[in-house]
């Protein structure tokens, strides 16, 4: 079924970062302001005119993460691995420019450390819910959503602090792991939580590859891979719970935010 509606409200997609807005030409700013009433809002449905269709979104983990070996040769048995995710955006190819930006040579944030994560790109699907994902559970959570028809080549995923109903499962952290690592005769029981703090950029994972042509009835699936979270941990230096200023916590911080810790696939109807 094709619905003649716009995507849900998605605003401030093309926000100019503070340090760049300071150098934004005042003339351009004035001209843009004058033209704004006539321009489709970049990112707010992107104004591409493509149909909005019913779709599904699935999110889950994999029992392959229950037992695995790290690059350094540690055999890890995980008993708990949870992460709090959302929102999730499926992005159009970079060379698809929102209509407003085709009409006006205004500034747009681009990918760069610390800059606006969505880069003024077209969002083909967004899921704004907060998901508690059990990375060891192979059965995904599935929800109905809407999508704009068209190509999507990348996923952007947020990692969130848990809302009340998820606090217990993650001990209040954004990410929680518990298990045992073994190497030779050495056995290291461990647990650890990750709190990404207040920096919104640290909470966004981009460059998650996707090769999809979104259409009516399709399902976008996102799986998390907890093996990547712990691959860089030096368990020799772990003593029980990961210390917040320790190597294991730093490695978890990098690992949980690596694009390879996620995989996105699309199942056409």
């Amino acid at each position, binding site marked *: 079924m094709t619905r003649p509606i716009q995507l849900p409200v998605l605003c401030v997609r093309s926000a100019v970062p503070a340090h760049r807005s300071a150098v934004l030409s005042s003339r351009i700013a004035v001209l843009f302001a004058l033209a704004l009433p006539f321009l489709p809002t970049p990112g707010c449905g992107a104004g591409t005119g493509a149909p909005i269709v019913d779709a599904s979104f699935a999110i889950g983990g994999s029992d392959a993460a229950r037992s695995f070996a790290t690059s350094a040769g540690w055999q890890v048995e995980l008993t708990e691995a949870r992460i709090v995710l959302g929102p999730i955006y499926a992005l159009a190819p970079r060379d698809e420019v929102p209509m407003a930006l085709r009409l006006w040579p205004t500034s747009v944030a*681009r990918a760069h450390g610390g800059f606006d994560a969505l880069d003024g790109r077209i969002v083909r699907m967004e899921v704004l819910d907060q998901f508690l994902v059990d990375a060891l559970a192979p059965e995904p959570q599935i929800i109905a959503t809407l999508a704009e028809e068209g190509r999507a080549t990348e996923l952007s995923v947020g990692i969130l602090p848990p809302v009340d109903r998820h606090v217990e499962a993650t001990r209040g952290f954004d990410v929680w792991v518990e298990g045992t690592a073994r190497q030779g005769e050495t056995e290291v029981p461990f647990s650890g939580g990750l709190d990404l703090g207040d920096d919104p*950029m640290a909470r966004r994972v981009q460059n998650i590859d996707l090769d999809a042509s979104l259409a009516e009835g399709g399902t976008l699936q996102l799986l998390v891979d907890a093996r990547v979270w712990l691959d860089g941990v030096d368990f020799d230096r772990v003593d029980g719970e990961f210390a917040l200023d320790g190597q294991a916590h730093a490695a978890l911080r990098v690992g949980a935010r690596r694009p390879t810790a996620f995989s996105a696939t699309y199942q056409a109807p």
Partner: protein
Amino acid sequence: MTMNNTHRPRRAGIGSLILLAIVACGSGSTGTLEVQLSGEEASQVGFPVGEGEGLIAFTDGWRIAFDRVLVSVSEIHVRASDGDDALVMADPVVVDLHLGEPIAWRFENVPSRRWDRVSYQFAPATSASRGVGDISADDVQAMAAGGHSFWIEGTATRGEESVAFSWQFDASIENTGCINGMDETDGLVVRESGVSGVQLTVHFDHLFFDSYAHDDPQLRFDPIAAVAGDDGVVTLEELASQSIVDMRDAEGAPILIDGAPLTYDPGDLDIPTTDLRAYMIGALSTTGHFNGEGHCDYELR
């Protein structure tokens, strides 16, 4: 954008549409476009560079002097989002940005208008690559023979310590949708009957950033110096032995900052492994800019 909506569209819209027409449509006139290549002052004098708020320096006290900053640019495209293409015919070039900021191309009779879709590519040099500026013929040949896109060589010093580095990268990097660093608009404008100059600017400080997860990273050399071999020259292969989540000094002990282990955060860099070589190749993909500070979308291929 609430109450004013009832008043502003008609008046402001007419003016805006006229301006849009002026910007979007060419007049039939042409101009000349010159493209300069630059590594800014840093590629010539090294780090630290600048002063005051503009100072760029290593937080761990190292100083760097470059001997070679060879860069291969394979193509540049000047297009417009309405489908127009300036059809500039850029041959592949190799430049030593340590030796200056040469003009790589001069395109005549380019239609005068805004070209809002500017892109260029770093790619391995080939036998067809032309040396520009003061680069030696030997260096051009070495870049082509090795299939390198970047060759960065120099020496880092800190007090009595001295560590050389020699890095040859083979990466192809597409820089697309470039924003003009001069005025923050998309692309460039070719002026009528004049010479319009633009610069492809390479920011080499990015190679030494310790984080891509925020916009205030530190420059560090300690993790690089730690993996120098017996010959005292750090290669890319040696950087692969340094884990960004488990940085070790030359004695194998964890590198600590304020008592906490030093780790690098790749942020959105798409790196296949968490070693320092992969991190630096990822960092290299972010170095291409346009007219100084203007950013492009970058993609490592």
